[in-house]
């Protein structure tokens, strides 16, 4: 395949079957390899769409500064596009995210402002909103509420899955900004009314839920629960176990959040087997494992790895 530039090569990622982890020839699991995007994660799609839209709307003009709260992947994608398009990039990132993410952001020229670990991404959002108020000339694309985030998946990820797997019965992805699930979910529902859209929400250590008040909680503006069939909370132990199974059984080296999605996908597969139904379950490999090597997720016992991940944002 030939492309005019790196950005032109975005998307059209492989959908690969999992012959060993699929329970039967009638109930099959399919991995959408989003690590095969320009910066190695699914976030390249929304980053590109959000910047493109901001340019078309006249919000972004050469030399402007982009500000974004991000636990890593979105920031990395935005930094790459910003570098190519001539914008300055500032990321507000919780301090409990992996060192690799920080190095990658700096490599693409982004400036990082750390937000406190306690409160996780909630704090990053709060700090970024405050900064945006103080710097009206900065452009906050705001992935949690930017329709172009979900639209990227509605226009690209969703159609790719349907084209490669017309018999799709389930779509499973991690729940963060909710952009992937909203976009792919809406697209698939329009073409396959019975499709089941399943969210796998990461359940972190307690530090991340250290809010001062329960009314300080956060729900992304993009979230519309009517798009989902159901939503599972996946703890780090299950996510790690599945991440390793994917590596050992199928050879796919994925990040920890992918283990969370796989866990929910395997749960749906078991239900289908029990009910005697046919199923083609597509799930998202959001990124590769490279950025998580320093967390020790792939070494030693699961218990040790889980302990090392305590308090880290792994999705």
């Amino acid at each position, binding site marked *: 395949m030939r492309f005019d530039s790196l950005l032109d090569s975005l998307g059209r990622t492989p959908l690969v079957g999992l012959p060993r982890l699929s329970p039967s020839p009638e109930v099959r699991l399919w991995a959408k390899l989003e690590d095969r995007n320009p910066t190695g994660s699914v976030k390249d799609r929304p980053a590109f769409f959000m910047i493109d839209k901001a340019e078309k709307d006249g919000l972004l003009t050469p030399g402007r500064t982009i500000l974004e709260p991000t636990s890593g992947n979105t920031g990395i994608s935005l930094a790459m596009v910003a570098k190519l398009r001539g914008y300055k990039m500032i990321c507000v990132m919780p301090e409990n995210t992996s060192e690799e993410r920080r190095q990658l952001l700096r490599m693409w020229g982004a400036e990082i402002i750390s937000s406190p670990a306690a409160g996780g991404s909630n704090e990053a959002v709060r700090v970024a909103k405050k900064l945006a108020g103080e710097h009206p000339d900065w452009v906050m694309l705001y992935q949690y509420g930017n329709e172009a985030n979900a639209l990227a998946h509605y226009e690209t990820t969703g159609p790719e899955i349907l084209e490669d797997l017309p018999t799709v019965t389930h779509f499973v992805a991690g729940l963060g900004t909710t952009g992937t699930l909203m976009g792919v979910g809406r697209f698939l529902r329009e073409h396959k009314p019975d499709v089941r859209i399943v969210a796998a929400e990461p359940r972190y250590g307690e530090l991340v839920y250290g809010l001062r008040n329960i009314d300080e909680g956060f729900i992304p503006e993009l979230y519309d629960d009517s798009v989902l069939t159901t939503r*599972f909370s996946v703890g780090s132990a299950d996510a790690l176990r599945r991440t390793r199974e994917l590596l050992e059984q199928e050879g796919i080296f994925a990040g920890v959040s992918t283990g969370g999605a796989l866990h929910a996908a395997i749960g749906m597969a078991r239900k289908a087997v029990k009910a005697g139904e046919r199923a083609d379950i597509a799930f998202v490999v959001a990124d590769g494992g490279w950025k998580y090597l320093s967390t020790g997720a792939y070494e030693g016992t699961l218990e040790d790895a889980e302990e090392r991940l305590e308090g880290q944002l792994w999705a």
Partner: protein
Amino acid sequence: MAIEVRIPTILRTLTDGAKAVEGKGTSLDELFADLDTRHPGLRARLVDDKGLRKFVNVYLNDEDVRFLGGLETEVSDGDNVTILPAVAGG
């Protein structure tokens, strides 16, 4: 046998610091009412007159109860209930 309910840090002032408590009931609503008899004020932090509070997520065996039956979701002995505040990801 009973139903184990995991309590988030922010609500542990109501459970004497306990990370998990036990309760009984046939629905989530009954379970919360039962917990409130030993941990007064807990129910009001989870539920208002419209149902589950906006920023409170409750999971029955890891599945979000809003996609099951909300407060009417059936529960039984041996189930695990997890309460968490809604936080940002991504």
